[in-house]
């Protein structure tokens, strides 16, 4: 088996763990940034009009596949179970805790392949940047054309759009304890470095704390 220590996340070269340790006491930062490395990500295709498929897939991922655009289903906390993001009328992104994707992919294929579903493991194709804090939304507004007003883009909502010059999938998690918003940004691996540096730059005026996710 390949040893986990051999893995490198998209942002491994930035030494974020060390930075997070150094930033631990930084409490006045308006923005917190971290990398959620190695998220499980499965691209699921199927016809939402096909009940057999919907039943099979929903049963496997433990929630009803969302069919309302820009919404998600499943768990906000991935340790509790997978989260399913609507990507398109025939496409979902299943996000799992790191390592959980392989088994789930197997189950999904078994359940859904017979009824027109297909699954592709894209866990390495994107990494996830977590952006939270009182000014998280301000930072996003600098590069994203979506309306991110808290009443419009609510917890559990997701959307694909552009952030600066990178294509992203944006997911809004449950608010932080202090009421501030928290976002997960799925970004293509080769754009991750660009986007991270961009985010740090854009967030500079609010103060940035690097966090461990």
């Amino acid at each position, binding site marked *: 088996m390949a040893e986990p220590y051999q893995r490198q996340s998209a942002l491994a070269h930035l030494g974020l763990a060390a930075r997070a340790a150094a930033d631990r006491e930084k409490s006045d930062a308006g923005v917190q940034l971290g990398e959620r490395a190695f998220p499980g990500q499965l691209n699921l295709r199927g016809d939402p009009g096909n009940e057999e498929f919907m039943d099979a897939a929903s049963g496997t991922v433990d929630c009803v596949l969302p069919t309302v*655009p*820009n919404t998600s289903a499943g768990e906000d906390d991935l340790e509790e179970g997978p989260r399913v993001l609507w*990507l*398109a*009328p025939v496409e979902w992104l299943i996000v799992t805790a790191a390592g959980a994707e392989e088994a789930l992919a197997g189950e999904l294929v078994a359940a859904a392949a017979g009824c027109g579903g297909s699954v592709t493991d894209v866990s390495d194709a994107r990494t996830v940047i977590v952006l939270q804090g009182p000014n998280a939304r301000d930072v996003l507004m600098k590069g994203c054309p979506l309306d991110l007003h808290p009443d419009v883009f609510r917890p559990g909502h997701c*959307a*694909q*759009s*552009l952030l600066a010059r990178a*294509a992203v999938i944006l997911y809004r998690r449950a608010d932080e304890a202090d009421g501030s918003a928290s976002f997960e940004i799925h970004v293509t691996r080769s754009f991750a470095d660009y986007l991270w540096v961009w985010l740090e730059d854009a967030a500079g005026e609010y103060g940035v704390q690097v966090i461990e996710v």
Partner: protein
Amino acid sequence: MLLITCPWCGPRDEIEFSCGGEAHITRPSEPEALTDEAWADYLFNRTNPKGPHAERWVHTHGCRRWFNVLRNTATNEILAVYEMGKPRPDGEGS
């Protein structure tokens, strides 16, 4: 910048989309049976009207779905958004 309503994702900025040109041009089923002129007509000729224009757009940085838009090229007013394969809502053209 245009505001285009993706039939699935809702209203989004033009920068998320790409325009694929005139809609309702069907690929000939038997290209080999066509004259060079008829083939060129399919390949190159476009209506390019000043006024309502049925065109295809794709939500490149969103759901990646293609759909049709009826847009007035003289004013940029968007008259309709409709799915691929559906006829032009204003009954014009083919």
